[in-house]
């Protein structure tokens, strides 16, 4: 394996991995706010890419992406108001079943709006054949877009959660919802905000990766399971861990292409998921003591 090839693999791994990381962060935001694993997380990514594609046919790329993100965030908010809020006495099984049902419904609606065709947004800069040379390897400028926007999302979120009042209020909710409510925080709108945020960043990720990985109505469930793997690997609820774990899984997948047939590619990440779930459910970076106090 030449050094250019290795760099090529590294870049493709980082690109895929950063998308997994964004999906995992989406999982984390909702999990922190509600204790729900939102199985429809991957569908937000699909919805973002698809909406932006349709809008890009009638307007320039930038407003198309922005409007797509806003629309998807609106869908996220609607999902919370209509379905999650109306759950009576939610049991864990009940919440799992509802979000699975939601992911199917969103997927089927997308199928009836956009049909089965695979679509792709145009490249943000250049075309599919333009490339930049980094350390002898040729990479698409879109890769830089993906990395830049993922970096912005992560930085923006960590700023939001540490330094803004709303972000701190959300963290308080995650910590102890009753106590946060007693302090005057509107816990309900915090949950709603969690869905808006996680749908919005999912949609943004869906837009930037669309030129590279294409968008199809059925991509959501695969992304969701990869994103969940990453979320678990990094420790559920831990967003820095999610980034590290996402890059790790992306790199692992990229390098395993040369060893394992393409058809079995997904088996790797799922096998990792199972191993982590069974051996260290607190994640790679989670502490065992804290894990002992939690229910898995």
């Amino acid at each position, binding site marked *: 394996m030449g050094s250019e090839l290795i760099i090529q693999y590294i870049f493709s791994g980082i690109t895929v991995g950063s998308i997994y990381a964004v999906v995992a962060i989406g999982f984390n935001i909702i999990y922190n706010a509600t204790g729900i*694993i939102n199985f429809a997380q991957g569908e937000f990514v699909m919805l973002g890419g698809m909406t932006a594609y349709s809008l890009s046919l009638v307007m320039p790329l930038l407003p198309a992406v922005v409007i797509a993100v806003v629309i998807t965030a609106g869908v996220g908010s609607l999902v919370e108001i209509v*379905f999650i809020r*109306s*759950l*009576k*006495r939610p*049991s*864990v*099984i*009940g919440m*799992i*079943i*509802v979000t*699975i*049902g*939601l*992911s*199917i*419904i969103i*997927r*089927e*609606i997308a*199928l*009836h709006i956009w049909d089965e065709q695979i679509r792709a947004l145009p490249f943000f800069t250049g075309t599919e054949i333009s490339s930049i040379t980094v350390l002898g390897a040729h990479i698409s400028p879109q890769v830089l877009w993906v990395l830049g926007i993922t970096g912005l999302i992560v930085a923006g979120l960590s700023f939001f959660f540490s330094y803004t009042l709303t972000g701190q209020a959300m963290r308080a909710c995650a910590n102890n919802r009753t106590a946060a409510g007693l302090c005057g925080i509107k816990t309900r709108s915090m949950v709603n905000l969690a869905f808006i945020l996680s749908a919005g960043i999912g949609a943004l990720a869906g837009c930037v990766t669309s030129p590279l990985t294409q968008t199809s109505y059925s991509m959501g*469930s695969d992304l969701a*399971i990869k994103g*969940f793997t990453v979320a*678990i690997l990094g420790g559920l609820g831990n967003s820095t861990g999610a980034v590290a774990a996402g890059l790790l899984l992306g790199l692992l997948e990229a390098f395993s292409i040369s060893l394992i*047939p393409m*058809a*079995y590619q*997904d*088996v790797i990440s*799922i*096998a990792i*998921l*199972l191993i982590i*779930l*069974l051996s260290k*459910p607190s994640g790679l970076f989670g502490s065992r003591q804290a894990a002992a106090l939690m*229910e*898995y």
Partner: protein
Amino acid sequence: MQGKRYLPVGILFCVIVVIQLLTTLFHVEYFLTQLTMSAYYTLTALGLCMLMGYTGQISLGQAGFFALGGYVSASLTTLDFSPLRDKGIVLFFERISFLQTADNIYGDEILFLNPWIAFAAAVLLTAGIAFVIGIPVLKLKGHYLAMATLGFSIIIYRIVLGTRFLGEADGISSVPSFRLLPGLHVNGDFSARAGNFYIAWVIVIIGLVLLLNLINSRAGRALRYIHGNEKAAGAMGVNTARYKLTVFIISALFASIGGFFLTHYNGGIGPSEAGVMKSVRYVAIVAVGGMANLWGTLIMGTLLNFLSLRGVFGSFDDAVFGGILIIIMIFAPEGIIRPALFRFLMDKVRKRRRAGASS
């Protein structure tokens, strides 16, 4: 008590006979094909009902076990041993009828494994795999359990889809018919339609009776106790891990046997049987049937699968099952088929009668 438990089973059998007679009477025998297929899917759902409803352990891997049973049999019984006929061991196996002969579509004689052997292999393999993955996986709860079982079924799906031996995306076809008893064959022949309908439903009834007995036994009480509060059950001396594992294996076996019979009935199996959507479908059926309710699962499983196989839902097939999941969980977490429904209907009738009397 015993009589009361088996009375509904007797009624079910009568209903099945009546349905068969009605289809003959109205010349709609083709309904029997879909009803036979729904029977095997319902068997799979009954197994999941035991695990999810009574023991409270969610599984998104039921389709994986279904496909396991189907694919083990399909791959083993479509191997042709006739080129190896000059080997002594092959002749010996043929003599003790481990191997059977039949003519393929080109009229050549082929030598294949007796489906009974394949059945034994499917059952043993399923039980083995359920045992091995059940021990660690059942330690998980809630979301983690759902994801781990989902992961299992995706792995099965990917393996089936990517392996040449298992037919990749095409699946396996021309699976031979399964001779259950002399004169009783599980296959898709039009002449054997009524016979197959009865075979399928007798299997479902046997499964149902087994589960009903299990629920009303000491073990059944322990399972409901685990569902109610696992820690308390453990504290009272119930071996929760062992009970959960046993039910997990039973539920996997129900799926595997359903898959085995459906494969022989259809004469083939495809990778979609292992798909995530199929697993979700079984969960939807159990949920709409009322979770801890075998009869609800039986009724809704038959009804929904029958409608789906008849193509009533059209291109909204998956959406219907997704919608059912959401609506049931939000509006009727206890399911539809339950005593409250009958009480509600009776109240309506009574009120109407009273209104009629007073006016």
